[in-house]
């Protein structure tokens, strides 16, 4: 069965600290993987995506993620967080169906709180 697990519902870090948000997936084929961020009272925005190739992908605002097929993981990292990074982060897997339409499988999200 296809699934995405974000084991941490809430993460709290201090401003300037490093960050890792964990994501594990279950999928038999080659996954497309994404991280989306949702700021308060807004829709979701794409942070970064992985289709193939270099397992470390760079995103916006200094975020990066590393794909690991052996660990079935796609963890999100940032070297130094800012208070404005406080948001909900979703790890997402794309499972292609027919044509170009892929059904997305969302994790439950991790709420990041950055303390001053």
């Amino acid at each position, binding site marked *: 069965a296809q699934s995405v697990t974000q084991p941490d*519902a809430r993460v709290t870090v201090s401003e300037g600290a490093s960050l890792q948000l964990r994501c594990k997936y279950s999928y038999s084929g080659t996954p*497309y993987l*994404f991280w*989306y961020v949702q700021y308060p*009272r*807004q*829709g*979701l*925005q*794409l942070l970064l*995506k992985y289709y193939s190739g270099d397992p470390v992908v760079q995103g916006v605002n200094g975020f990066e993620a590393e794909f690991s097929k052996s660990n079935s993981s796609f963890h999100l990292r940032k070297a130094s967080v800012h208070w404005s990074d406080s948001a909900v982060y*979703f790890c*997402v897997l*794309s499972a*292609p169906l027919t*044509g*170009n*339409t*892929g*059904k*997305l499988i*969302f*994790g*439950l*999200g991790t709420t990041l709180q950055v303390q001053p």
Partner: protein
Amino acid sequence: GGIITQTPKFLIGQEGQKLTLKCQQNFNHDTMYWYRQDSGKGLRLIYYSITENDLQKGDLSEGYDASREKKSSFSLTVTSAQKNEMAVFLCASSINTGQLYFGEGSKLTVL
């Protein structure tokens, strides 16, 4: 760039009422989606549409209807609002697999 516009941002209805949410996109994307977001449950797909006049049921389609009369618009109807319908509904569009562009959401409250 483009934008996804959802109307209304806030919708208050009575239990049993038929309620409609609208979504417009100017990306010229083929595929549009409606998701429901409940606290602690992530996003669940209600309906999606891969082209004008096409409708595909998602995991949560029961109790909802959808309509895609134009490529740029996708509407969602709650056929009979229930108190447990209180949630945020997110519209999105995409041109290829996975990269979605989301609207800001419509919050439904049922009295």
